[in-house]
């Protein structure tokens, strides 16, 4: 029995019925990681010793028929979640030796539920990027074609789940950083409603955009994980005190009679023909299952990338001001003579190009004389994007669209053209602008030159409608098996 291709549900059932132990499962995963990760580079840190100890403890709990659905389940964390006593770098040189003194709230929650952490996964530096190429540890490869990117910024987490190197993995999504890599690698990726999951202890990028979510092998698994991590946290004042529903309750209800909107702006210019075909085939599938398909319009879509690349760098430049080589991280090689010199060196040496670019854009748009023209204007256009979604959700229950306009590109191909990477997020950014939840699920493949490449569809719902997203996603996974496909190349 291959233990690493089990879903969370299957692994949990196997543990509970004592078919195998958490130690067996954890060992199987490390074997798999040792075999596969030298080609993919999804992990930047493996914590095998601690993992085996945690697995032994989980087995003691399971032996007493106690514990939760997650007890003993091996999983991975993007290297942006603070883990007490375990190096957390955000894949930036400036934090290369940072060992957090406390756990992020969701790390604490997962520990309490009894999971086993396998290690920390690769990402674009400070989660800024769409390909994991901007990691100080080097890129993560796509499991379907190792010469291509895994997507980003949570590329390590996506590749780990898609290649059976973790049962599930957590990531963050500010403009598409969960959904795009999930689509590129072929796994389920959930971005929650803004504020649904606590961000305390997770390095902030753009505070009015950042969300946390999960990569999983199935929609049902994603629902199970969200059940554990969702909810109000006193340490994150953006988490509303709203009850967390039972996410599995309606998951089998199907889509009969549901209204699914197809936003026409998401199928326009720049969408790869193969991607278009995959998404329309999925829409047909929903129609067959009894959903009503309605074309809708979100006319502000084309402005979302610009809104993002004004407000996101602005917020980033403020949030990353704390990384100055004084309170955390590394001392610069050239310490200089005074404090200003020290700051200039610490940040000049510690950040790589993409972070420097974004901090400077942010600093520029917030500087005297430019604030109204850039930042305030962008926040006003953001209001109009939100109104687009509000109007659409008066007509339909959910929206279905492509996740990214193109499939995974070749490593290095876009490195000299940062703007072209920004445009890969054109269909995911509007969702973050409006703070609504969305999920990417595998829906087929397009032809690459060496290998078929996975393509996902994006299911978008109104704020706090995660339950509905699971219902819609699960219906599709019952009639298709795209989510069960694994690359034979690794």
């Amino acid at each position, binding site marked *: 029995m291959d233990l690493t291709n089990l879903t969370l549900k299957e692994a949990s059932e196997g543990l509970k019925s004592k078919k195998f132990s958490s130690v067996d499962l954890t060992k199987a995963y490390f074997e798999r990681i040792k075999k596969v990760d030298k080609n993919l580079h999804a992990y930047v840190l493996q914590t095998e010793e601690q993992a085996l100890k945690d697995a032994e403890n989980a087995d003691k709990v399971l032996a007493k028929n106690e514990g939760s659905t997650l007890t003993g389940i091996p999983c991975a964390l993007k290297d942006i979640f603070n883990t007490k006593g375990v190096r957390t770098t955000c894949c930036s040189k400036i934090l290369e*030796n940072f060992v*957090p*003194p*406390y*756990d992020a709230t969701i790390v604490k929650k997962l520990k309490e539920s009894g999971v086993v952490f396998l290690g920390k996964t690769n990402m674009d530096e400070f989660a800024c990027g769409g390909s994991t190429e901007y990691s100080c540890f080097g890129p993560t490869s796509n499991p379907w074609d190792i010469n291509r990117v895994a997507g980003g910024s949570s590329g390590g987490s996506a590749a780990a789940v898609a290649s059976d190197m973790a049962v599930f993995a957590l990531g963050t999504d500010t403009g598409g950083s969960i959904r795009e890599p999930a689509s590129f690698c072929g796994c389920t990726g959930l971005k929650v*409603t*803004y504020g649904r999951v606590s961000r305390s*202890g997770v390095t902030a990028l753009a505070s*009015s955009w950042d969300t946390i979510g999960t990569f999983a092998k199935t929609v049902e698994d994603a629902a199970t994980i969200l059940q554990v991590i969702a909810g109000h946290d*006193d340490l994150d*004042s*953006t988490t509303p005190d709203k009850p967390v529903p039972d996410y599995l309750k309606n998951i089998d209800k199907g889509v009969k009679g549901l209204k699914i909107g197809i936003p026409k702006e998401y199928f326009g210019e720049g969408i790869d023909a193969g991607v278009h075909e995959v998404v329309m085939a999925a829409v047909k599938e929903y129609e067959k299952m009894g959903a009503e398909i309605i074309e809708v319009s979100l006319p502000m879509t084309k*402005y979302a990338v*610009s*809104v993002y*690349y*004004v407000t996101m760098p602005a917020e980033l430049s403020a949030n990353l*001001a704390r990384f100055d*080589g*004084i*309170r*955390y*991280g*590394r*001392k610069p090689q050239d*310490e*200089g*003579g005074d*404090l*200003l*010199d*020290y700051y*200039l*060196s610490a*940040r*000049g040496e510690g950040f790589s*190009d993409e972070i*420097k*670019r974004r*901090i*400077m*854009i*942010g*600093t*520029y748009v917030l500087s005297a004389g430019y604030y109204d023209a*850039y930042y*305030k*204007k*962008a*926040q*006003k*256009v*953001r*209001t*109009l994007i*939100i109104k687009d979604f509000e109007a659409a959700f008066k007509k339909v229950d959910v929206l279905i669209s492509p996740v990214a306009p193109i499939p995974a590109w070749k490593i290095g191909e876009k490195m000299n053209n940062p*703007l072209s990477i920004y445009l890969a997020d054109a269909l995911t950014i509007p969702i973050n*602008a*409006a*703070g609504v939840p969305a999920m990417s699920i595998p829906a087929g493949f397009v032809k690459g030159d060496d290998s078929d490449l996975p393509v996902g569809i994006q299911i978008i719902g109104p704020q706090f409608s995660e339950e509905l997203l699971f219902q819609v996603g699960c219906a599709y996974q019952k009639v298709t098996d795209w989510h069960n496909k694994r690359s034979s190349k690794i």
Partner: protein
Amino acid sequence: MLSEEEVKHIAKLARIRLTDEEIKKFSTQLTDILEYVKILEEVDTKDVEPTSQVTGLKDVTREDVVVSNLATGEDLLKCSPLPIQNNQIKVKPVIKQ
């Protein structure tokens, strides 16, 4: 167009030292990005309120008491790469002598 002088100025405000080569490269790349976002100018935003919070939360407050027991001051000081003296981080001089 963002001139090299402007890039230098912004970099100083952002406390980032750049090499001459970086200044050149960023001048072009940042100009491209700022040109691209100009598309926002064509949107009529008269009487539109700017967004600051998306889920409608307002004025979230709590009692002004220390509740965080996540880490001790000592733990936090250990994160610094600089020498610690009297429970404080010793930094380079701010004013040159």
